[in-house]
Each structure stands twice: as structure tokens, then as C-alpha cells.
């Protein structure tokens, strides 16, 4: 019985009181059921999206099932998952890591090198990479977690920098240096190769996102997740309770690293190779931007933030070179053609004015809801609240 109540409470968003499901009103019941199942509905919509030939002018170039659109969507999905994994560190445990790009890059380069240079089949390469990346995260985390706070941020940054140097200097001719390493597709399964099969990669990316969200959600809801939230809020108290903060932080760090490595493997397939920019500290910084824009510590905020960031990053480049921007005076058109300028500025404004990110928008708009309702039903004067008119 207790477990039944617990799952109902966990499935409902916190805004709905847990008694709502047992309330007699059928309307409300229907609504809360919809809210509980809405993630699956969204997943279903995304899964059947490639069957639609609708084109959305201005949002995407070409129809929704075109390879270009699908690839952009798939990249957005991978980064949504990546941001959700990073949020396990930043939003849920309170660890500010500046080196998360390292594990993503380990996934990208590990898969690429094992397939292209060692000639392994894809599933072996991906599995080996996943294991290797997770071990790497565990080892480096074990050292970095000897420090805390800002020092931890710097140490992770320095470790990621070593990764960037190793890739850029091309030791042993493995990484291809500045030019990157394109994936040798001859040994891959046929269904993952070629422009016509982008849709399979899209589904792979969607599955990755679903997996990450599921894992993060399960971890956050478990007793371990409560300890992680406790570490974020007051680490000393967790220590006083007799739990070892170091172990739990290392667990979160390793898990997040492993998830990022898996994302790297899929990204490698998606873009058909590896390039050194995935090792840059800028990538970690943009992960931070995604999480903060979306709403740290929430289930959908980081996913939303990651997808929106990558979408804007890709589309703003096209927008910046469009005629509408070019016709503006030079003072405006120059900065607007730089996606990072727009995103950086939005990010700074978000830190000041929207501390909860996109996920907090619905609660922030709650006070406006009665007003909206009264505006939408002007034909029923009896239902209008007396003060609302």
C-alpha cells in the first residue's frame, strides 16, 4: 500500500497534491493521468516524427523527415541527454565540474579509434568505450573529489585540458590531431550508414535520451538520490548522519561520466567521426549553460535546455547570415551573426532574471492563469470571478 502511494506521488508533479488521484472529480482524475503519462506521449510523438512529411517553414529547412532535419533533431536529442546527465552532477548533487566534455570526448574518440584504427565491430567498440569511459571517470573523480567547491571545478578543468592536449597533439597518430578522425563506415552495420538511414540514428539518439532521463529519474528518486540532494544542500549534515559524502559523490561522478561516454558513442555515429572541438572546455561551459537555462535539478529542464541550446546554436548561424539580419546596421548584424554572443547574453540574463530556468516558467506564470482563463471565457458572465472583470 505504501509503495502504491509513493509511486503515485512520484509520478505526479509536485504541484498536484497526492490526494488528487483519489478525489471523486473525474475531470481532475483524467487530467492527472494525462500528466503522468505525458512523458510517454511525448516520446511516442518523437518516435513517429520521422513518418511525417510536414514541413515547418522557418523552424526547419525542408520536411520533418528530411535527413538534414532529422540529423539536427538527433543532435539536439543527444545533447538533451548529455545535459540531463550533467545535471546529475550540477543540479542534483551540487558539484560544479568543468571537465564533463572529457567523458563525452572519450566516447566520441574511443568509438572512432576502436572502429577505424583497431577494426573492431561497432557493438564491441561501443561496449569497450563505455567501460573505459566509466573507469576513466571513476579514476579521475577519485582524485578530483579530494578537493571541493571551486578547487574541484579547476581540477576537473585541468584534467579535461589534458584530454584536449592529447587529442590535439595526436600522440601515436591515433586521433588525427586538429583535423579530427572520420569514422570508417565499412565495418559498420548497413542500417546505420548513409544519408537515407539517418532515421535509424535519430531513433538511437531518442533511445539514448530516454535512457538517460530514466536513469537520472530513478537515481534521483532512490535513497541514493536523496543523499545526493542532501550533499547539494548541506554536505556536513550528511557526514554527521554517518554517510560518506566522498563515496556518493564519486558514484554520481562515475555514473554521469558513463552516461556522457555513451552519448559520445552515438554522437560519433551521428556526425560520422570525431573532431577536436568536442574536447574543448567550451563544450563543458555550454553544458552548464544548457542546464542553467533549462532549470537545474528538474526532470525536464536540462533536457529542454540542451535541445533548445543545440537547436539555437545551429539555427542562429543560418539566421545570422539571413537577409533580415544583413539589412540591419553593422553594429547589430555583426554580434547577431555570432550564435555564442546571443546565447551568452541570454544566459547572463537568465542568471539574473530566471534563476529556475525554463522549468520554472510554468510556476512563474501560475499567477497569470486565472486572468488568462477569464480572458478566454468572456461569453459566460456568470462564471467570471467578481474581481476579475
Amino acid at each position, binding site marked *: 500500500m505504501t509503495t502504491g502511494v509513493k509511486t503515485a506521488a512520484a509520478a505526479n508533479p509536485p504541484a498536484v497534491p497526492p490526494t488528487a488521484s483519489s478525489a471523486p472529480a473525474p475531470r481532475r482524475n483524467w487530467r492527472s493521468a494525462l500528466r503522468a503519462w505525458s512523458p510517454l506521449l511525448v516520446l511516442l510523438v518523437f518516435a513517429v516524427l520521422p513518418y511525417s512529411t510536414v514541413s515547418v517553414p522557418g523552424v526547419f529547412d525542408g520536411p520533418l523527415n528530411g535527413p538534414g532535419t532529422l540529423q539536427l533533431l538527433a543532435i539536439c536529442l543527444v545533447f538533451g541527454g548529455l545535459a540531463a546527465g550533467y545535471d546529475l552532477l550540477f543540479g542534483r548533487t551540487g558539484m*560544479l565540474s568543468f571537465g564533463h566534455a572529457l567523458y563525452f570526448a572519450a566516447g566520441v574518440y574511443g568509438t572512432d579509434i576502436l572502429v577505424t584504427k583497431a577494426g573492431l565491430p561497432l557493438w564491441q567498440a561501443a561496449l569497450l568505450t563505455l567501460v573505459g569511459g566509466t573507469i576513466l571517470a571513476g579514476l579521475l573523480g577519485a*582524485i578530483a573529489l*579530494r*578537493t571541493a567547491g*571551486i*578547487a574541484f*571545478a*579547476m*581540477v576537473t*578543468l*585541468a*584534467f579535461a*585540458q*589534458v584530454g584536449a*592536449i*592529447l587529442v*590535439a*597533439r595526436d*600522440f601515436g597518430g591515433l586521433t588525427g590531431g586538429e583535423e579530427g578522425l572520420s569514422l570508417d563506415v565499412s565495418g559498420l552495420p548497413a542500417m546505420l550508414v548513409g544519408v537515407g538511414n539517418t532515421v535509424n540514428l535519430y531513433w538511437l539518439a531518442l533511445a539514448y535520451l530516454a535512457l538517460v532521463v530514466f536513469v537520472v529519474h530513478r537515481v534521483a528518486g532512490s535513497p541514493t538520490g536523496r543523499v545526493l540532494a542532501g550533499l547539494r544542500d548541506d554536505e556536513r549534515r550528511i557526514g554527521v548522519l554517518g554517510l560518506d559524502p566522498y563515496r556518493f559523490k564519486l558514484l554520481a561522478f562515475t555514473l554521469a561520466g558513463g552516461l556522457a561516454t555513451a552519448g559520445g558513442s552515438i554522437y560519433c555515429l551521428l556526425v560520422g567521426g570525431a573532431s577536436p572541438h568536442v574536447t574543448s*572546455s*567550451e563544450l563543458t*561551459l*555550454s553544458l*552548464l*549553460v544548457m542546464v*542553467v537555462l533549462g532549470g537545474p535539478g528538474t526532470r525536464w529542464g536540462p533536457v529542454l535546455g540542451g535541445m533548445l541550446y543545440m537547436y539555437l546554436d545551429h539555427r542562429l548561424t543560418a539566421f545570422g547570415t539571413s537577409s533580415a539580419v544583413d539589412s540591419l546596421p553593422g553594429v547589430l548584424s*555583426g*554580434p547577431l*551573426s*555570432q*550564435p*555564442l*554572443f546571443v*546565447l*551568452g*547574453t541570454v*544566459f*547572463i540574463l537568465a*542568471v*539574473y532574471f530566471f*534563476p529556475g530556468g525554463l522549468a520554472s516558467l510554468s510556476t512563474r506564470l501560475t499567477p497569470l492563469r486565472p486572468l488568462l482563463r477569464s480572458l478566454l471565457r468572456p461569453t459566460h458572465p456568470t462564471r467570471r470571478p467578481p474581481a476579475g472583470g
Partner: protein
Amino acid sequence: MSTIVLLTLTGLGLAALYFLVASGLSLVFGLADVLNFAHGLFLSVGAYATWWAAGNLPGAGPSGFGFVLAVAFGVAAGAVVGMAVELVMIRPLYSRTIEQVLVTVGLSLAGVALLQATWGADPRPFPRPDWTQRVTSVLGAKVPNSGILLILAAALVLAALLGFLRYTRYGLVIRAGVENREMVTALGIDVRKAFTLVFAIGGAAAALAGALGGVYFGSVSPSQGGSLLIFAFIVVVIGGMGSVVGSAYAAVAVGLLQQFVNYYGTSGAGDICVVALLAIVLLLRPQGIAGRAATT
């Protein structure tokens, strides 16, 4: 022998560059607890302001007194940008450390993109006096003059900073603030004025590093600040956050280690050794070489 002298002096030149960036970073972190990711932007602002002044400012130019004027303009621009960042962006978020870091991260992304939009992503040739492109013979080694210029400038900045911190009233406030900010506030001293001052000093030192680094590398590009910043962070952590002297020692250690290992080992191995040094220092002495004190 001449190789060792050459490597030592070029290593010290690199160390001088790191020190100029790290000293401001360290003071800002020690006093205001702000991990300033926008510090690399100050460096780029200094470099671009010097480059712009040498071409456009009346009286300034690529050689002689005109060059000194151009560098002075760049340093002033760095100080003004540092002050503006503190007053407009950091101050409203006082005592919210994570948000301050996030804002400086956003600023570094947006600022570099703005520089790129204005002057392009490609490196621009930097104006430099003829004598900085020649070499001086020291103990049989031919050392580039620009490296010697960097070392002298860094030594001057170190001496000036120490003099300022030890013998002036504001220096006293900063030193006390680094050690115990709450106590200084409790004594009725407005520490936030010192925050602005420290940001201005840090901005000026970083801008000087940008201008002289431009002379050293011969070109200026928007992303230059970011790549130097990571090593400056390492120097700050090794030296002890908040300590100017610690930064100086750590900069020398990092610069020399990097230069020697890169020469005798494979290229890039020096950078990795520096990170290994960081890991060792953190494991043995997490508070850094000097600990938390501004001038020891």
C-alpha cells in the same frame, strides 16, 4: 649550456605571462571569492585595444613612444572593463558564488563572440617595435627581446603590487580582506570598494599580459585569452588562492617545467606534466604553496 640558458629564459618569459594573468585572478578570488572566467576576456580586450590604438589613436604607433602610449591605452581599457564588470555584473550577485561564476562564464562566451564579430576570428598581425623582434645574446644563447621584455614587465608588476599591498592603506584592506573578509566588514570598512579596485588591478595586469603577449606571439586573436586562462587557473591553484607571491613562484615552476619538458620530451608532454604537478600539489597540500595570505 646555451640551450639551457635559452630554455630557462623563454620559460621565464612564459612564466611572466602566466603571472600577469594569474596575479589578478588570484587577488580577485582571494578577496571576493569570484572564480573569474571572464579574466581571459580582459586579456583579449587589452590586446585588441593596444592593436587598435597603435593603428588609430593619434600619437600612438607601432614603435618608440607611440608604442608605450598604445600599451598604456590597452592597460587602461582592461582596467575600465574589469571595473565595469565588477560594478554592473558581479556586485548584484554578492555572496552568491555559483551565480557569479555562471555570469562570468556567460560573459566570456559572449565577449569572445563579440570580439570575433567585430574583428574576425583569424589572428591579426600585432604591431611591435623593431627591437622586440631581434635577439640578445645572454651567456651564448640568443634570447628574443620580447621574452626579456615580458620578464622585466612581470618583475615590475610584482614589485609594484607588493609595494601597493604592503605600504598603502588600500593594500592593507585588501590583505586583511583576503584573510578574513567578515572581520574587515565588521570593523566598518567598505570591502566592496576594494572589490572594484581588485578587479581594476586584475583587468589592468591581464590587459598588459595581452599587449605584451601580442608582441611575444606576433599576432592577436579572440581565443588567445581562453587558452592562457586555463594555465593561469592552474598557476592560481598551485600558488594558493589569494597569494600574489605564491602565484609568482607557481608561475615560474609551471613555465620552466612546461618549457623544459616540451623541449626534451615530445611536444605537449610539458602541458601534461603541469597538470600532473597540479594533481600532486592538490593531494599533498590542498591549500596551495602559500595558503591564504596575499603577500606571503
